[in-house]
């Protein structure tokens, strides 16, 4: 199978969307714990959290530039231990993507299509994602080049249109409750940085690997900035107490926007932008999972795994939570915190240690040589 190639720009956009889409969904997590102006401070603080995580993954990938983690883990640790170590990673991709899918389904059912069965909405979405995954990372990368700008532009537009509704006074006071709540509120959303682990799978496809670290950091920072901005505007509009009560602050914000008595009710823009971004994110995580599983099982062509895996994913996201309340229970610092931390650093950390002990892969012939696999 010919190795697919994505450009650095596409890579950047993919990393961007990994953070940006989810944060709009997880905004309530940040906002709910905060008081006064702390919420936007918290959002800005978590811009920084993404940077070391992104760098951690890129640095690990750079040690073995032509292989995915599922390949070099086997080389470094042996086929059995390698598979044991990378299995949690596979589970992570599956689990996180089913949580994302469920959140998307819940949001759609709540805000747009209350009568439509959840399974149908999620099924349609996962079907489209599966088609994307079958077409490969190259096609997903190209789609990203159209979808991410669409997402970014419409999100920024909504934010800008909402700015006049806000009151600057709502952004103060800052830090009255101490640092505790700020950090506490940030733990759960930060665990979603696990999604950056897709770097470990898509890095070998990168055609120019030189600035991968820089662009991952840039993407992470700009995405978090966008989210911080959205959170700040939401707090400015609703005040911290009310913003914490809203389940979809960004959607509520868009519903309020009114410009010149004609540009109003623009939540469709948000919905479509969010859906497009989420599709991309889900597809890339799904791709990482499917490709990882293929390598893990030793199946060369991961594409035949896509539809079965999609079915599992759909089922999983249905059975994970009996209702919408359980999702917010799951997304608390106590539950998601340790779990997410383990997922982010656990398996890759072990592989990195092994890599330190056994040495890095030999550099491939040529600057962007073909994969050794």
């Amino acid at each position, binding site marked *: 199978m010919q190795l697919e190639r994505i450009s650095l720009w596409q890579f950047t956009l993919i990393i961007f969307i990994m953070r940006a889409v989810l944060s709009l969904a997880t905004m309530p997590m940040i906002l709910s714990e905060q008081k006064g102006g702390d919420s936007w401070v918290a959002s800005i603080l978590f811009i920084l959290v993404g940077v070391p995580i992104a760098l951690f993954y890129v640095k690990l990938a750079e040690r073995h530039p032509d292989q995915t983690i599922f390949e070099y883990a086997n080389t470094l640790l042996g086929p059995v231990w390698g598979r044991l170590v990378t299995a949690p990673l596979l589970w992570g991709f599956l689990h996180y993507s089913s949580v994302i899918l469920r959140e998307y389904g819940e949001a759609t059912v709540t805000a747009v*299509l209350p*009568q439509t069965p959840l399974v149908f909405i999620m099924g349609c979405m996962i079907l489209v994602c599966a*088609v994307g995954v079958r077409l490969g990372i190259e096609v997903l990368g190209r789609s990203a080049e159209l979808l991410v700008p669409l997402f970014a532009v419409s999100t920024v537009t909504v934010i800008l249109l909402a700015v006049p509704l806000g009151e600057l006074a709502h952004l103060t006071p800052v830090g009255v409750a101490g640092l505790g709540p700020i950090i506490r509120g940030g733990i759960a959303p930060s665990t979603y940085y696990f999604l950056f682990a897709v770097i470990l799978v898509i890095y070998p496809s990168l055609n120019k690997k030189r600035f991968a670290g820089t662009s991952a950091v840039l993407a992470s920072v700009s995405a978090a900035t966008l989210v911080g901005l959205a959170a700040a505007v939401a707090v400015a509009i609703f005040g911290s*107490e*009310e913003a914490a009560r809203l389940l979809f602050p960004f959607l509520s914000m868009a*519903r*309020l926007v*009114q410009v010149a008595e004609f540009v109003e009710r623009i939540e469709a823009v948000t919905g479509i932008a969010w859906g497009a971004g989420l599709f991309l994110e889900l597809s890339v995580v799904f791709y990482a999972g499917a490709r990882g599983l293929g390598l893990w099982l030793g199946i060369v062509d991961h594409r035949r795994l896509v539809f079965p895996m999609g079915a599992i994913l759909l089922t999983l996201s249905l059975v994970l939570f009996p209702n919408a309340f359980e999702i917010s229970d799951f997304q608390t610092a106590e539950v998601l915190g340790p779990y997410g931390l383990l997922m982010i650093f656990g398996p890759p950390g072990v592989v990195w240690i092994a890599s330190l002990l056994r040495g890095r892969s030999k550099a491939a012939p040529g600057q962007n040589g073909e994969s050794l696999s």
Partner: protein
Amino acid sequence: MRRRLLLKCLFTLSLVATAALGAGCWDRIEVQTLAFVTEAGIDPAVETEENPFGWESVELSVRVANTASAQDSGTGASSTSLGALVVGRGVSPLDALNDIQSASGRIIYVAHNRAAVVSSQLAQAGRMTEVIDFFDRSRQARRSAYLLVADGLSAREVISLGSQLSDQESSAIFELARFNHRTRGMPIVTINDFIVRATQEGVDPIAIRVSAAPMLTSPAESGSSEPQGGPSAAGGRQVEIAGAALFRKDVLVGYLDEDATRGLLWARGDLSSGSVNVPCPAVTEKSFGFLVRRSSGAVTIETDPELRGKVTITMEGDFVGLSCPGGGYKSTSQAVQVAQERLKARVEESVRAAIAKSQQLQADPFGFGAALMRKEYGVWRRVKERWYDTVWPELPVDIEIKVDIRRPGLVGPPYQVDR
């Protein structure tokens, strides 16, 4: 390769087919089967024979837009394009809505509700939570609808009387409030504004006060445009926006009159339009009008040496009416200076009235408390408990106003006639 593509096509086709043929259209509602609610009013239900125990405690009156108007239905069409007023009862507004639905052939759809009128009895009784939740939780209802408190008449009457105002707009009450805001400096308060202020510390919400006034138009004229009978026809009254309803958190405590309302809005910086009439310097029975073009206001608080509020207002605008006798001044600019002083005094008067009234009612719509919280959180925490009881009612407030009269309009002084 080909087979794969074929497979993909089949998948897409089967998706579309299952979706279209199966029970796919779960949420599909044809637009003509909807009854669009454009105004909603909530009253406490009165005890009647059918409702002896007051069990059905809420009465919901909605105006349903008349979507049949564009179709020339020929006979029997109502003369107005404003729709019918429908009333339902229930234990909660939602229950009352179901009551309305049970008597309606179309699906009641509240996503286009533009004005929510709440009876003052409900607001005084602290039952705003019910009202707000009704407009807040449902995915249909919008927080951008205006929130009005009916003073001196029921919400149902407000909606009923509103129909005399205009037969073109989808929501007459909405338009009434909007134009009153633009021209007379009356407040605009959306449900969202109310919620945000009510949930915030140190600031209290207001709502638009709507009350009844004797009708100015001749009965003959209004009679023709009166669509339905009921209590409104006899009264010879019309609705008007008359200032703001003042809440302490979510309990209605009183009203601000129009003058004080403008003072409040200027102080908060919520009003950048409107006109002010000021008595002339020499002849008080004559006046000049000042049209506000730009205005900003800020509420701040000093903590040192003692708590002291401060309101800063900057205004800019033009003359609109000027009937003052022109004599006595050396130049026009001197006259303008005098006028500015008068204007300043006039605005300050309004603000003072607003402050006095709200201190008396122990409600803080200015947000002095919030200003304190933002400035000195520690001090706020100390005074928070007794803010409404002792601190706010006795808070001294300084008012600083800057007024600029920029342009005289198209003519200079009023014309002079030698008698």
